């Protein structure tokens, strides 16, 4: 598996580390207990396109927002997590 980093181009999987579901960008208000429990512990876990966060750890160290098919490992989109967060008004 290779990931096409927006900064560095196609790089081997070894350079990246998986950091979980992309929903982790949207941290809820800590006072909202139900939302926080869901944020920390519960996942959609789809068999199909999954939005997730990766860190280009041994590369440019950018956080990436990747949509990847969990059945085929096909990568459907790669963006900088920063752009996605700004887009969502974070």
């Amino acid at each position, binding site marked *: 598996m290779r990931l096409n980093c927006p900064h560095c181009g196609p790089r081997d999987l070894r350079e990246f580390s998986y950091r979980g*579901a992309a929903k982790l960008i949207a941290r809820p208000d800590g006072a909202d207990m139900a939302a926080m429990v869901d944020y920390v512990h519960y996942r959609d876990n789809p068999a199909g396109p999954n939005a997730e966060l990766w860190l280009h750890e041994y590369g440019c160290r950018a956080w990436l927002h990747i949509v990847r098919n969990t059945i085929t490992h096909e990568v459907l989109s790669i963006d900088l997590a920063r752009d996605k967060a700004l887009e969502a008004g974070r």
Partner: protein
Amino acid sequence: MRAKQTGRAMRYSAFQILKQGLTGNKGWQPVWRSPEPKPAYDVIIIGGGGHGLATAYYLAKNHGLTNIAVLERGYLGGGNVGRNTTIVRANYHLNGNSEFYSHSLKLWEGLEQELNYNAMMSQRGVLNLCHSDGQFDFYSRRGNLIRAQGDDAEMLDRAGVQKYAPYLNFKDERFPIRGGLLQRRGGTARHDAVAWGYARGADLRGVDLIQSCEVTGTDIENGKVVGVQTTRGAIKAKKIGMAVAGRSSQVGQMAGLRLPIESHILQAFVTEGLKPIVPGVVTFGMGHFYLSQSDKGGLVFGGDIDMYNSYAARGNMPMMEHVMEAGMAMMPAIGKARVLRGWGGIVDMTMDGSPIIDKTHVDGLFFNGGWNYGGFKATPASGWCYAHLIATGNHSEYATKLLMNRFVTGHVLDEEGTGAHPNKH
């Protein structure tokens, strides 16, 4: 104890092997029936893997329920019960886990006699290596907690490990072997045979094992489960138990369950057959690696999960390389062995690394899953405790803490202490 035999049961024995051998092996009977699904059952178990089959067996044996169907989308034992590295152990240290796995090991010890089935259970010992003073202290504490639970554990110092497992790498300067935690009652069992033995035991008691039958929907009326939709038609049931680890999120979704689970890939590997060299199970303490030798002679080993969500049931090269490197660090001699094959299984990784056996928000619907990469050794106790819950509505004394809502209440069972990161357990 054989309450409801179907009359065609064949008891396996040395005499039977001799008799069949001398008569051209023509008298062997099918191990289980292949019935058509009935329109309704008292209990439906979704998933014909080790846990589902064990659950059906104990529902029949311990609770006298026999109007049961096990629905399997593929073939019996075709999932993770046939893909694991066959290790059996009870070396957990948290209350909640330790009494559960302790019960499981005790059930393993009497399993073959009980099932009249050769599961090749071999208590050849499980040795966890440690490589620093800190790790030695941590394992000593864990060993004490295992003993406090009533199970066996002994600490070996470096010389003790050298005597017990002289084939390991004692010249490694980077990861020196400091000692090891040995559980002699741990070991291995033939994984497929465990599924087949439970299947046969359940079938003998009248349970319908229905293969090639995929559940496509759960029928719920007024908050109560009434049946399932399947590829072989609708089937009604008063109670339904899910045992579909690996696919828990998909099957759960049919009933509106949202779960603290991610699906990941765990790979395993086996080499060509070799002369006996590794008598027990050995695990490396500086990286996730575990090794045993099958009765056929192949070295069976595995390591970490692939670290990212996947339903592909096949692993990737970097983790394969990592596993081989860890193996070479622990036991350089394996570098001479040729790897015959490797494979992957889809595992339910929970947010605290421990399993769930509980009721759900739907009346009559039960959940068993989240076995991470350790479901095989749990098979007997999982079936035992799940059957207890389904039959009585109460949690078995061995599984009072494997609850669904522990992620809400904060009573998580995080054996490794890594927090809500499924890929780090």
